[in-house]
Protein backbone atom coordinates (compact mmCIF):
# COMPACT_ATOMS: atom_id res chain seq x y z
CA UNK A 1 0.00 0.00 0.00
CA UNK A 2 2.83 2.31 0.87
CA UNK A 3 4.49 1.71 -2.50
CA UNK A 4 1.23 2.49 -4.22
CA UNK A 5 0.79 5.81 -2.44
CA UNK A 6 4.42 6.83 -3.05
CA UNK A 7 4.01 5.84 -6.69
CA UNK A 8 0.90 8.03 -6.91
CA UNK A 9 2.82 10.81 -5.26
CA UNK A 10 5.66 10.47 -7.79
CA UNK A 11 3.20 10.43 -10.65
CA UNK A 12 1.51 13.63 -9.48
CA UNK A 13 4.84 15.35 -9.13
CA UNK A 14 6.11 14.23 -12.54
CA UNK A 15 3.02 15.70 -14.18
CA UNK A 16 2.46 18.72 -11.95
CA UNK A 17 5.91 20.30 -12.08
CA UNK A 18 6.23 20.71 -15.87
CA UNK A 19 2.49 21.37 -16.16
CA UNK A 20 2.67 24.26 -13.72
CA UNK A 21 5.79 25.61 -15.40
CA UNK A 22 4.11 25.64 -18.83
CA UNK A 23 0.90 27.15 -17.47
CA UNK A 24 2.75 29.99 -15.80
CA UNK A 25 5.34 30.70 -18.49
CA UNK A 26 3.46 29.83 -21.66
CA UNK A 27 -0.32 30.04 -21.27
CA UNK A 28 -0.70 32.79 -18.66
CA UNK A 29 1.43 35.27 -20.68
CA UNK A 30 -0.94 34.88 -23.63
CA UNK A 31 -3.89 35.92 -21.51
CA UNK A 32 -1.92 38.91 -20.28
CA UNK A 33 -1.13 39.89 -23.88
CA UNK A 34 -4.81 39.61 -24.70
CA UNK A 35 -5.66 41.79 -21.74
CA UNK A 36 -3.09 44.45 -22.55
CA UNK A 37 -4.14 44.55 -26.21
CA UNK A 38 -7.49 46.02 -25.12
CA UNK A 39 -6.16 48.41 -22.49
CA UNK A 40 -5.33 52.08 -22.69
CA UNK A 41 -1.75 53.25 -23.14
CA UNK A 42 -0.42 55.75 -20.62
CA UNK A 43 2.82 57.69 -20.94
CA UNK A 44 5.21 54.92 -19.91
CA UNK A 45 2.98 51.96 -19.37
CA UNK A 46 -0.54 50.70 -19.81
CA UNK A 47 -3.67 51.18 -17.74
CA UNK A 48 -5.45 48.35 -15.98
CA UNK A 49 -8.68 47.43 -17.70
CA UNK A 50 -10.48 47.03 -14.39
CA UNK A 51 -10.47 50.02 -12.09
CA UNK A 52 -12.06 50.75 -8.72
CA UNK A 53 -12.93 54.33 -7.96
CA UNK A 54 -15.62 55.92 -5.75
CA UNK A 55 -16.99 52.51 -4.93
CA UNK A 56 -17.66 51.74 -8.60
CA UNK A 57 -15.95 48.92 -10.39
CA UNK A 58 -15.47 49.90 -13.99
CA UNK A 59 -14.20 47.87 -16.90
CA UNK A 60 -12.63 49.79 -19.76
CA UNK A 61 -12.08 47.77 -22.91
CA UNK A 62 -10.57 49.45 -25.90
CA UNK A 63 -10.79 47.74 -29.24
CA UNK A 64 -9.42 50.63 -31.24
CA UNK A 65 -6.14 48.80 -31.90
CA UNK A 66 -7.95 45.97 -33.63
CA UNK A 67 -10.07 48.42 -35.60
CA UNK A 68 -6.87 50.16 -36.63
CA UNK A 69 -5.20 46.91 -37.73
CA UNK A 70 -8.16 45.98 -39.94
CA UNK A 71 -8.52 49.44 -41.42
CA UNK A 72 -4.91 50.46 -41.97
CA UNK A 73 -3.67 49.03 -45.30
CA UNK A 74 -0.07 48.88 -44.02
CA UNK A 75 -0.94 46.20 -41.46
CA UNK A 76 -3.05 44.23 -43.90
CA UNK A 77 -0.30 44.29 -46.55
CA UNK A 78 2.33 43.31 -44.02
CA UNK A 79 0.34 40.35 -42.71
CA UNK A 80 -0.32 39.24 -46.26
CA UNK A 81 3.34 39.62 -47.25
CA UNK A 82 4.43 37.60 -44.19
CA UNK A 83 2.08 34.78 -45.13
CA UNK A 84 3.30 34.87 -48.74
CA UNK A 85 7.00 34.75 -47.81
CA UNK A 86 6.30 31.95 -45.34
CA UNK A 87 4.39 30.00 -48.00
CA UNK A 88 7.11 30.50 -50.63
CA UNK A 89 9.72 29.33 -48.12
CA UNK A 90 7.67 26.26 -47.20
CA UNK A 91 7.22 25.25 -50.86
CA UNK A 92 10.92 25.73 -51.62
CA UNK A 93 11.93 23.73 -48.55
CA UNK A 94 9.59 20.95 -49.65
CA UNK A 95 10.91 21.00 -53.24
CA UNK A 96 14.53 20.79 -52.07
CA UNK A 97 13.96 18.79 -48.90
CA UNK A 98 11.72 15.99 -50.16
CA UNK A 99 14.17 14.57 -52.72
CA UNK A 100 16.95 15.20 -50.21
CA UNK A 101 15.22 13.19 -47.47
CA UNK A 102 14.21 10.55 -50.02
CA UNK A 103 17.77 9.97 -51.23
CA UNK A 104 19.01 9.96 -47.63
CA UNK A 105 16.49 7.31 -46.68
CA UNK A 106 17.46 5.19 -49.70
CA UNK A 107 21.21 5.52 -49.19
CA UNK A 108 23.24 2.56 -47.91
CA UNK A 109 22.09 1.86 -44.32
CA UNK A 110 25.64 2.10 -42.99
CA UNK A 111 25.91 5.62 -44.42
CA UNK A 112 22.62 6.90 -43.05
CA UNK A 113 23.69 7.81 -39.48
CA UNK A 114 26.49 9.97 -40.91
CA UNK A 115 24.15 11.62 -43.42
CA UNK A 116 21.67 12.33 -40.64
CA UNK A 117 24.39 13.75 -38.41
CA UNK A 118 25.46 16.08 -41.23
CA UNK A 119 21.93 17.50 -41.44
CA UNK A 120 21.77 18.00 -37.67
CA UNK A 121 25.24 19.55 -37.29
CA UNK A 122 24.30 23.04 -38.55
CA UNK A 123 21.74 23.13 -35.70
CA UNK A 124 24.63 23.18 -33.26
CA UNK A 125 26.37 26.10 -34.93
CA UNK A 126 24.78 29.46 -34.39
CA UNK A 127 21.80 30.19 -36.61
CA UNK A 128 22.41 33.93 -36.25
CA UNK A 129 25.94 33.56 -37.59
CA UNK A 130 24.91 31.37 -40.50
CA UNK A 131 22.30 33.94 -41.55
CA UNK A 132 24.91 36.66 -41.20
CA UNK A 133 27.24 34.62 -43.44
CA UNK A 134 24.73 34.88 -46.31
CA UNK A 135 25.21 38.64 -46.25
CA UNK A 136 28.83 38.14 -47.22
CA UNK A 137 27.93 35.54 -49.84
CA UNK A 138 25.22 37.63 -51.50
CA UNK A 139 26.72 41.10 -51.30
CA UNK A 140 28.40 42.23 -54.49
CA UNK A 141 31.70 40.34 -54.92
CA UNK A 142 30.58 37.47 -52.66
CA UNK A 143 30.97 33.85 -53.81
CA UNK A 144 27.29 33.13 -54.44
CA UNK A 145 26.57 36.57 -55.89
CA UNK A 146 29.40 36.13 -58.41
CA UNK A 147 28.22 32.64 -59.31
CA UNK A 148 24.63 33.78 -59.87
CA UNK A 149 25.70 36.71 -62.05
CA UNK A 150 28.18 34.58 -64.03
CA UNK A 151 25.49 32.01 -64.76
CA UNK A 152 23.09 34.77 -65.77
CA UNK A 153 20.58 33.64 -63.15
CA UNK A 154 20.05 37.22 -61.99
CA UNK A 155 18.14 37.82 -65.24
CA UNK A 156 15.78 34.98 -64.30
CA UNK A 157 15.31 36.43 -60.81
CA UNK A 158 14.75 39.85 -62.31
CA UNK A 159 12.04 38.59 -64.64
CA UNK A 160 10.38 36.86 -61.67
CA UNK A 161 10.35 40.20 -59.89
CA UNK A 162 12.43 38.88 -56.99
CA UNK A 163 15.24 41.42 -57.39
CA UNK A 164 14.92 45.08 -58.45
CA UNK A 165 17.92 45.27 -60.82
CA UNK A 166 20.49 42.86 -62.31
CA UNK A 167 23.32 42.04 -59.93
CA UNK A 168 21.58 43.40 -56.85
CA UNK A 169 20.84 40.34 -54.72
CA UNK A 170 21.04 41.52 -51.12
CA UNK A 171 18.10 43.19 -49.33
CA UNK A 172 15.59 41.81 -51.81
CA UNK A 173 12.73 39.30 -51.60
CA UNK A 174 15.18 36.82 -53.15
CA UNK A 175 17.76 37.10 -50.35
CA UNK A 176 15.00 36.95 -47.73
CA UNK A 177 13.41 33.75 -49.07
CA UNK A 178 16.84 32.20 -49.68
CA UNK A 179 17.85 32.91 -46.08
CA UNK A 180 14.63 31.49 -44.66
CA UNK A 181 14.82 28.41 -46.90
CA UNK A 182 18.41 27.84 -45.80
CA UNK A 183 17.58 28.19 -42.11
CA UNK A 184 14.46 26.03 -42.09
CA UNK A 185 15.53 23.30 -44.57
CA UNK A 186 16.70 20.91 -41.80
CA UNK A 187 13.29 21.30 -40.10
CA UNK A 188 11.72 19.97 -43.31
CA UNK A 189 14.28 17.22 -43.94
CA UNK A 190 14.28 15.64 -40.47
CA UNK A 191 10.58 14.69 -40.16
CA UNK A 192 10.50 13.61 -43.82
CA UNK A 193 13.56 11.41 -43.37
CA UNK A 194 12.11 9.89 -40.21
CA UNK A 195 8.99 9.07 -42.16
CA UNK A 196 10.60 7.79 -45.39
CA UNK A 197 13.21 5.68 -43.58
CA UNK A 198 10.43 3.71 -41.84
CA UNK A 199 8.62 2.90 -45.07
CA UNK A 200 8.12 -0.75 -45.98
CA UNK A 201 10.03 -1.16 -49.25
CA UNK A 202 8.21 -4.40 -50.06
CA UNK A 203 5.24 -2.25 -51.05
CA UNK A 204 7.31 -0.84 -53.91
CA UNK A 205 8.40 -4.33 -54.97
CA UNK A 206 4.77 -5.39 -54.97
CA UNK A 207 3.86 -2.39 -57.11
CA UNK A 208 6.67 -3.21 -59.56
CA UNK A 209 5.52 -6.84 -59.75
CA UNK A 210 2.06 -5.61 -60.60
CA UNK A 211 3.49 -3.57 -63.46
CA UNK A 212 3.82 -0.07 -62.01
CA UNK A 213 6.73 2.01 -63.27
CA UNK A 214 9.01 3.41 -60.55
CA UNK A 215 7.57 6.86 -61.26
CA UNK A 216 3.95 5.71 -60.78
CA UNK A 217 4.91 3.76 -57.67
CA UNK A 218 6.58 6.85 -56.25
CA UNK A 219 3.51 9.04 -56.69
CA UNK A 220 0.95 6.41 -55.74
CA UNK A 221 2.75 4.79 -52.82
CA UNK A 222 5.72 6.70 -51.46
CA UNK A 223 4.21 10.18 -51.48
CA UNK A 224 0.84 9.25 -49.89
CA UNK A 225 2.62 7.20 -47.22
CA UNK A 226 4.82 10.16 -46.32
CA UNK A 227 1.87 12.51 -45.86
CA UNK A 228 2.44 12.83 -42.09
CA UNK A 229 6.07 13.81 -42.65
CA UNK A 230 5.12 16.36 -45.32
CA UNK A 231 2.56 17.99 -43.04
CA UNK A 232 4.79 18.01 -39.96
CA UNK A 233 7.74 19.44 -41.91
CA UNK A 234 5.62 22.09 -43.64
CA UNK A 235 4.16 23.31 -40.36
CA UNK A 236 7.59 23.35 -38.72
CA UNK A 237 8.73 25.67 -41.52
CA UNK A 238 5.61 27.74 -42.14
CA UNK A 239 4.59 28.79 -38.63
CA UNK A 240 7.88 30.26 -37.37
CA UNK A 241 8.50 31.88 -40.77
CA UNK A 242 5.32 33.98 -40.45
CA UNK A 243 6.68 35.75 -37.39
CA UNK A 244 10.35 35.64 -38.34
CA UNK A 245 12.33 38.68 -37.25
CA UNK A 246 16.10 38.09 -37.43
CA UNK A 247 16.29 36.88 -41.05
CA UNK A 248 14.25 39.77 -42.59
CA UNK A 249 16.28 42.15 -40.47
CA UNK A 250 19.63 40.85 -41.75
CA UNK A 251 18.75 39.75 -45.28
CA UNK A 252 15.54 41.56 -46.17
CA UNK A 253 15.17 45.03 -47.54
CA UNK A 254 12.92 48.03 -47.31
CA UNK A 255 10.18 46.44 -49.40
CA UNK A 256 10.19 43.13 -47.54
CA UNK A 257 8.51 44.34 -44.36
CA UNK A 258 7.28 41.42 -42.28
CA UNK A 259 4.93 41.37 -39.33
CA UNK A 260 7.59 40.39 -36.79
CA UNK A 261 9.35 43.66 -37.56
CA UNK A 262 6.12 45.64 -37.13
CA UNK A 263 5.56 44.09 -33.71
CA UNK A 264 9.18 44.82 -32.78
CA UNK A 265 8.90 48.46 -33.83
CA UNK A 266 5.59 49.00 -32.03
CA UNK A 267 7.21 47.70 -28.90
CA UNK A 268 10.78 49.01 -29.02
CA UNK A 269 10.48 52.20 -31.10
CA UNK A 270 6.93 53.43 -30.44
CA UNK A 271 6.74 51.98 -26.92
CA UNK A 272 3.10 51.21 -27.68
CA UNK A 273 2.59 48.01 -25.70
CA UNK A 274 -1.16 47.64 -26.34
CA UNK A 275 -0.60 47.98 -30.10
CA UNK A 276 2.27 45.47 -30.04
CA UNK A 277 0.00 43.11 -28.10
CA UNK A 278 -2.80 43.50 -30.65
CA UNK A 279 -0.37 42.73 -33.49
CA UNK A 280 0.72 39.61 -31.56
CA UNK A 281 -2.87 38.49 -30.95
CA UNK A 282 -3.74 38.82 -34.65
CA UNK A 283 -0.58 36.90 -35.56
CA UNK A 284 -1.53 34.07 -33.22
CA UNK A 285 -5.04 34.00 -34.71
CA UNK A 286 -3.49 33.67 -38.19
CA UNK A 287 -1.35 30.71 -37.24
CA UNK A 288 -3.76 28.98 -34.88
CA UNK A 289 -5.09 26.56 -37.50
CA UNK A 290 -1.63 25.48 -38.75
CA UNK A 291 -0.62 25.28 -35.08
CA UNK A 292 -3.48 22.93 -34.24
CA UNK A 293 -2.61 20.74 -37.23
CA UNK A 294 1.03 20.66 -36.15
CA UNK A 295 0.15 19.73 -32.57
CA UNK A 296 -2.07 16.89 -33.77
CA UNK A 297 0.56 15.40 -36.07
CA UNK A 298 3.37 15.97 -33.61
CA UNK A 299 1.42 14.16 -30.88
CA UNK A 300 0.64 11.30 -33.26
CA UNK A 301 4.24 11.01 -34.41
CA UNK A 302 5.51 11.09 -30.82
CA UNK A 303 3.03 8.51 -29.69
CA UNK A 304 4.08 6.25 -32.54
CA UNK A 305 0.69 5.96 -34.10
Amino acid at each position, binding site marked *: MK*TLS*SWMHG*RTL*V*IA*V*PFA*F*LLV*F*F*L*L*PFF*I*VGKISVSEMETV*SFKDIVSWSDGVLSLALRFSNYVFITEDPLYFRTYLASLQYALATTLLCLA*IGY*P*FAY*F*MARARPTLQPA*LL*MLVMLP*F*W*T*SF*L*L*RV*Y*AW*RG*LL*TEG*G*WVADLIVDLGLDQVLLSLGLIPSPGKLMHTPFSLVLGMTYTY*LPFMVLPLYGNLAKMDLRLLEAAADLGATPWTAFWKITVPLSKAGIIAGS*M*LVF*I*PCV*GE*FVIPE*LLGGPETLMI*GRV*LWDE*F*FSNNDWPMASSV*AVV*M*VLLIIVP*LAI*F*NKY*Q*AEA*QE*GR
Partner: protein
Amino acid sequence: MKRGTSATFNRWFGRGWLGLGYLFLYLPIVALVVFSFNDSPIPNVWRGFTLKWYVALAHDSEMLAGLWLSLKIAFLTACGSVVLGTLTAFALVKYKRFAGRTLFSGMATAPLVMPEVVVGLSLLLMLVSVQRALGFPERGMLTIWFGHLLLGVAYAAVVVQARLQDLNPQLEEAAMDLGARPHQVFWLVTLPMIAQSLISAWLLTFTLSLDDVVLSAFLSGPGATTMPLVIFSRARLGLNPSVNAVATLIIVVVAIGVVAASWFIANAERKRQREMAAAVRG
Protein backbone atom coordinates in the same frame (compact mmCIF):
# COMPACT_ATOMS: atom_id res chain seq x y z
CA MET B 1 20.51 -2.48 -70.96
CA LYS B 2 18.09 0.43 -70.76
CA ARG B 3 17.19 -0.51 -67.20
CA GLY B 4 20.88 -0.47 -66.27
CA THR B 5 21.53 3.03 -67.60
CA SER B 6 18.43 4.46 -65.93
CA ALA B 7 19.47 2.90 -62.59
CA THR B 8 22.92 4.45 -62.96
CA PHE B 9 21.33 7.77 -63.81
CA ASN B 10 19.08 7.55 -60.75
CA ARG B 11 22.01 6.73 -58.49
CA TRP B 12 24.03 9.67 -59.74
CA PHE B 13 21.07 12.01 -59.65
CA GLY B 14 20.51 11.09 -56.00
CA ARG B 15 24.16 11.58 -55.13
CA GLY B 16 24.22 14.90 -56.96
CA TRP B 17 21.11 16.15 -55.15
CA LEU B 18 22.53 15.15 -51.76
CA GLY B 19 25.90 16.71 -52.61
CA LEU B 20 24.35 20.02 -53.65
CA GLY B 21 22.10 19.97 -50.60
CA TYR B 22 25.03 19.54 -48.24
CA LEU B 23 26.97 22.20 -50.13
CA PHE B 24 24.03 24.57 -49.57
CA LEU B 25 23.99 23.74 -45.85
CA TYR B 26 27.73 24.07 -45.28
CA LEU B 27 28.78 26.84 -47.68
CA PRO B 28 27.95 29.70 -45.26
CA ILE B 29 29.83 27.98 -42.44
CA VAL B 30 32.92 27.55 -44.62
CA ALA B 31 32.67 31.18 -45.76
CA LEU B 32 32.47 32.41 -42.16
CA VAL B 33 35.67 30.59 -41.24
CA VAL B 34 37.57 31.58 -44.40
CA PHE B 35 36.77 35.27 -44.15
CA SER B 36 37.71 35.46 -40.50
CA PHE B 37 41.32 35.21 -41.76
CA ASN B 38 40.83 37.74 -44.54
CA ASP B 39 43.15 40.73 -44.70
CA SER B 40 41.13 43.03 -46.92
CA PRO B 41 39.20 46.27 -46.62
CA ILE B 42 36.28 44.63 -48.45
CA PRO B 43 35.10 41.98 -45.99
CA ASN B 44 33.79 39.47 -48.54
CA VAL B 45 36.60 39.56 -51.10
CA TRP B 46 39.64 37.45 -50.26
CA ARG B 47 43.03 39.17 -50.30
CA GLY B 48 45.42 37.65 -47.84
CA PHE B 49 45.86 35.83 -44.56
CA THR B 50 45.79 37.65 -41.23
CA LEU B 51 45.06 36.97 -37.57
CA LYS B 52 44.36 40.59 -36.72
CA TRP B 53 40.62 40.02 -36.16
CA TYR B 54 41.41 37.47 -33.49
CA VAL B 55 43.83 39.87 -31.81
CA ALA B 56 41.16 42.57 -31.93
CA LEU B 57 38.67 40.15 -30.42
CA ALA B 58 40.88 39.55 -27.39
CA HIS B 59 40.57 43.27 -26.57
CA ASP B 60 36.86 43.51 -27.39
CA SER B 61 35.48 43.88 -23.87
CA GLU B 62 31.86 44.26 -25.02
CA MET B 63 31.95 40.95 -26.89
CA LEU B 64 33.81 39.15 -24.11
CA ALA B 65 31.37 40.33 -21.44
CA GLY B 66 28.50 39.22 -23.65
CA LEU B 67 30.13 35.83 -24.19
CA TRP B 68 30.58 35.26 -20.44
CA LEU B 69 26.95 36.19 -19.72
CA SER B 70 25.72 34.01 -22.58
CA LEU B 71 27.74 31.03 -21.37
CA LYS B 72 26.31 31.34 -17.85
CA ILE B 73 22.74 31.59 -19.14
CA ALA B 74 23.27 28.73 -21.59
CA PHE B 75 24.63 26.47 -18.84
CA LEU B 76 21.69 27.18 -16.53
CA THR B 77 19.22 26.83 -19.42
CA ALA B 78 20.61 23.48 -20.50
CA CYS B 79 20.49 22.05 -16.95
CA GLY B 80 16.99 23.35 -16.25
CA SER B 81 15.66 22.28 -19.65
CA VAL B 82 16.93 18.72 -19.32
CA VAL B 83 15.29 18.29 -15.89
CA LEU B 84 11.95 19.84 -16.85
CA GLY B 85 12.03 18.39 -20.38
CA THR B 86 12.62 14.88 -19.00
CA LEU B 87 9.69 15.27 -16.59
CA THR B 88 7.52 16.49 -19.48
CA ALA B 89 8.56 13.58 -21.68
CA PHE B 90 7.89 11.13 -18.83
CA ALA B 91 4.47 12.56 -18.15
CA LEU B 92 3.56 12.29 -21.85
CA VAL B 93 4.97 8.82 -22.49
CA LYS B 94 4.15 7.02 -19.25
CA TYR B 95 0.78 8.48 -18.36
CA LYS B 96 -1.73 8.19 -21.15
CA ARG B 97 -4.60 9.60 -19.12
CA PHE B 98 -4.73 12.55 -16.81
CA ALA B 99 -6.80 15.70 -16.58
CA GLY B 100 -5.69 18.29 -19.10
CA ARG B 101 -3.35 15.97 -21.01
CA THR B 102 -4.27 17.45 -24.41
CA LEU B 103 -3.62 20.96 -23.13
CA PHE B 104 -0.35 19.79 -21.60
CA SER B 105 0.95 18.14 -24.77
CA GLY B 106 -0.13 21.16 -26.81
CA MET B 107 1.71 23.55 -24.51
CA ALA B 108 4.80 21.33 -24.56
CA THR B 109 5.10 21.38 -28.36
CA ALA B 110 3.80 24.85 -29.22
CA PRO B 111 7.00 26.74 -28.23
CA LEU B 112 8.84 24.76 -30.95
CA VAL B 113 7.03 26.65 -33.70
CA MET B 114 5.50 29.71 -32.05
CA PRO B 115 7.12 32.85 -33.51
CA GLU B 116 9.70 34.06 -31.04
CA VAL B 117 8.50 37.67 -31.14
CA VAL B 118 5.15 36.50 -29.73
CA VAL B 119 6.73 34.36 -27.01
CA GLY B 120 9.18 37.13 -26.10
CA LEU B 121 6.53 39.84 -25.94
CA SER B 122 4.07 37.78 -23.91
CA LEU B 123 6.69 36.61 -21.40
CA LEU B 124 7.95 40.14 -20.95
CA LEU B 125 4.49 41.57 -20.39
CA MET B 126 3.78 38.88 -17.82
CA LEU B 127 7.04 39.53 -15.99
CA VAL B 128 6.30 43.26 -16.00
CA SER B 129 2.88 42.57 -14.47
CA VAL B 130 4.49 40.36 -11.82
CA GLN B 131 7.08 43.00 -11.12
CA ARG B 132 4.37 45.62 -10.62
CA ALA B 133 2.61 43.44 -8.11
CA LEU B 134 5.58 42.02 -6.23
CA GLY B 135 8.50 44.36 -6.97
CA PHE B 136 10.63 41.69 -8.60
CA PRO B 137 12.12 40.24 -10.85
CA GLU B 138 14.22 42.95 -12.42
CA ARG B 139 14.84 42.46 -16.11
CA GLY B 140 18.22 40.83 -16.61
CA MET B 141 19.90 37.46 -16.48
CA LEU B 142 17.08 35.80 -14.55
CA THR B 143 14.34 36.90 -16.95
CA ILE B 144 16.41 35.87 -19.99
CA TRP B 145 16.87 32.49 -18.34
CA PHE B 146 13.08 32.08 -17.95
CA GLY B 147 12.60 32.72 -21.66
CA HIS B 148 15.34 30.36 -22.79
CA LEU B 149 14.09 27.73 -20.38
CA LEU B 150 10.63 27.77 -21.97
CA LEU B 151 12.13 27.15 -25.41
CA GLY B 152 14.65 24.63 -24.07
CA VAL B 153 12.04 22.54 -22.25
CA ALA B 154 10.09 22.06 -25.48
CA TYR B 155 13.18 20.93 -27.43
CA ALA B 156 14.49 18.72 -24.60
CA ALA B 157 11.07 17.09 -24.23
CA VAL B 158 10.99 16.14 -27.93
CA VAL B 159 14.47 14.60 -27.80
CA VAL B 160 13.87 12.63 -24.59
CA GLN B 161 10.35 11.62 -25.62
CA ALA B 162 11.63 10.07 -28.86
CA ARG B 163 14.04 7.93 -26.84
CA LEU B 164 11.53 6.93 -24.16
CA GLN B 165 9.15 5.83 -26.88
CA ASP B 166 11.71 3.35 -28.22
CA LEU B 167 12.44 1.79 -24.84
CA ASN B 168 11.30 -1.71 -24.18
CA PRO B 169 8.87 -1.39 -21.24
CA GLN B 170 9.54 -5.01 -20.27
CA LEU B 171 12.90 -4.02 -18.80
CA GLU B 172 11.22 -1.66 -16.35
CA GLU B 173 8.47 -4.19 -15.64
CA ALA B 174 11.10 -6.86 -14.98
CA ALA B 175 12.88 -4.57 -12.53
CA MET B 176 9.62 -3.93 -10.70
CA ASP B 177 8.80 -7.64 -10.62
CA LEU B 178 12.19 -8.18 -9.01
CA GLY B 179 11.17 -5.79 -6.25
CA ALA B 180 12.67 -2.47 -7.29
CA ARG B 181 10.87 0.65 -6.07
CA PRO B 182 9.69 3.12 -8.75
CA HIS B 183 12.48 5.55 -7.97
CA GLN B 184 15.01 2.70 -8.08
CA VAL B 185 13.62 1.63 -11.45
CA PHE B 186 14.09 5.17 -12.67
CA TRP B 187 17.66 5.68 -11.41
CA LEU B 188 18.97 2.17 -12.10
CA VAL B 189 17.13 1.08 -15.24
CA THR B 190 15.46 3.93 -17.11
CA LEU B 191 18.03 6.67 -16.63
CA PRO B 192 21.06 4.71 -17.93
CA MET B 193 19.04 3.77 -21.02
CA ILE B 194 18.02 7.35 -21.82
CA ALA B 195 21.35 8.91 -20.79
CA GLN B 196 22.47 9.56 -24.35
CA SER B 197 19.29 11.44 -25.19
CA LEU B 198 19.81 13.56 -22.07
CA ILE B 199 23.29 14.47 -23.31
CA SER B 200 21.95 15.38 -26.76
CA ALA B 201 19.17 17.43 -25.18
CA TRP B 202 21.66 19.22 -22.94
CA LEU B 203 23.93 20.12 -25.87
CA LEU B 204 21.02 21.18 -28.07
CA THR B 205 19.45 23.47 -25.47
CA PHE B 206 22.86 24.87 -24.57
CA THR B 207 23.49 25.95 -28.16
CA LEU B 208 19.90 27.17 -28.57
CA SER B 209 20.35 29.48 -25.62
CA LEU B 210 23.79 30.59 -26.76
CA ASP B 211 22.25 31.58 -30.09
CA ASP B 212 19.01 33.29 -29.18
CA VAL B 213 18.44 36.91 -30.20
CA VAL B 214 14.73 37.65 -30.05
CA LEU B 215 13.82 36.33 -26.58
CA SER B 216 16.97 37.88 -25.12
CA ALA B 217 16.19 41.25 -26.70
CA PHE B 218 12.76 41.32 -25.09
CA LEU B 219 13.82 39.98 -21.72
CA SER B 220 17.20 41.63 -21.17
CA GLY B 221 17.63 44.70 -19.04
CA PRO B 222 20.29 47.35 -18.69
CA GLY B 223 23.72 45.77 -18.38
CA ALA B 224 22.56 42.33 -19.48
CA THR B 225 23.66 42.21 -23.13
CA THR B 226 24.24 38.68 -24.31
CA MET B 227 26.71 37.82 -27.06
CA PRO B 228 24.05 37.27 -29.78
CA LEU B 229 22.68 40.74 -29.04
CA VAL B 230 26.17 42.22 -29.55
CA ILE B 231 26.64 40.22 -32.76
CA PHE B 232 23.18 41.11 -34.03
CA SER B 233 23.60 44.85 -33.50
CA ARG B 234 26.94 44.77 -35.36
CA ALA B 235 25.67 42.53 -38.15
CA ARG B 236 22.72 44.84 -38.74
CA LEU B 237 25.15 47.60 -39.62
CA GLY B 238 27.00 45.56 -42.22
CA LEU B 239 29.77 43.01 -42.60
CA ASN B 240 32.10 42.92 -39.66
CA PRO B 241 35.21 40.67 -39.59
CA SER B 242 35.24 40.52 -35.79
CA VAL B 243 31.90 38.73 -36.04
CA ASN B 244 33.56 36.18 -38.34
CA ALA B 245 36.32 35.65 -35.80
CA VAL B 246 33.82 34.96 -32.99
CA ALA B 247 31.87 32.71 -35.33
CA THR B 248 34.95 30.64 -36.15
CA LEU B 249 35.82 30.17 -32.50
CA ILE B 250 32.26 29.07 -31.69
CA ILE B 251 32.18 26.69 -34.65
CA VAL B 252 35.47 25.08 -33.64
CA VAL B 253 34.42 24.64 -30.00
CA VAL B 254 30.98 23.29 -30.93
CA ALA B 255 32.41 20.93 -33.56
CA ILE B 256 34.84 19.48 -31.02
CA GLY B 257 32.10 19.21 -28.40
CA VAL B 258 29.61 17.51 -30.71
CA VAL B 259 32.15 15.09 -32.18
CA ALA B 260 33.38 14.17 -28.69
CA ALA B 261 29.84 13.73 -27.40
CA SER B 262 28.72 11.59 -30.33
CA TRP B 263 31.86 9.45 -30.04
CA PHE B 264 31.12 9.00 -26.34
CA ILE B 265 27.46 8.21 -27.03
CA ALA B 266 28.29 5.72 -29.78
CA ASN B 267 30.78 3.97 -27.49
CA ALA B 268 28.35 3.79 -24.60
CA GLU B 269 25.65 2.47 -26.92
CA ARG B 270 27.95 -0.27 -28.28
CA LYS B 271 28.92 -1.27 -24.75
CA ARG B 272 25.25 -1.41 -23.72
CA GLN B 273 24.36 -3.51 -26.77
CA ARG B 274 27.20 -5.91 -25.97
CA GLU B 275 26.07 -6.24 -22.35
CA MET B 276 22.50 -6.80 -23.43
CA ALA B 277 23.57 -9.46 -25.91
CA ALA B 278 25.68 -11.09 -23.20
CA ALA B 279 22.74 -11.00 -20.80
CA VAL B 280 20.49 -12.66 -23.36
CA ARG B 281 23.06 -15.41 -23.93
CA GLY B 282 23.19 -15.85 -20.16
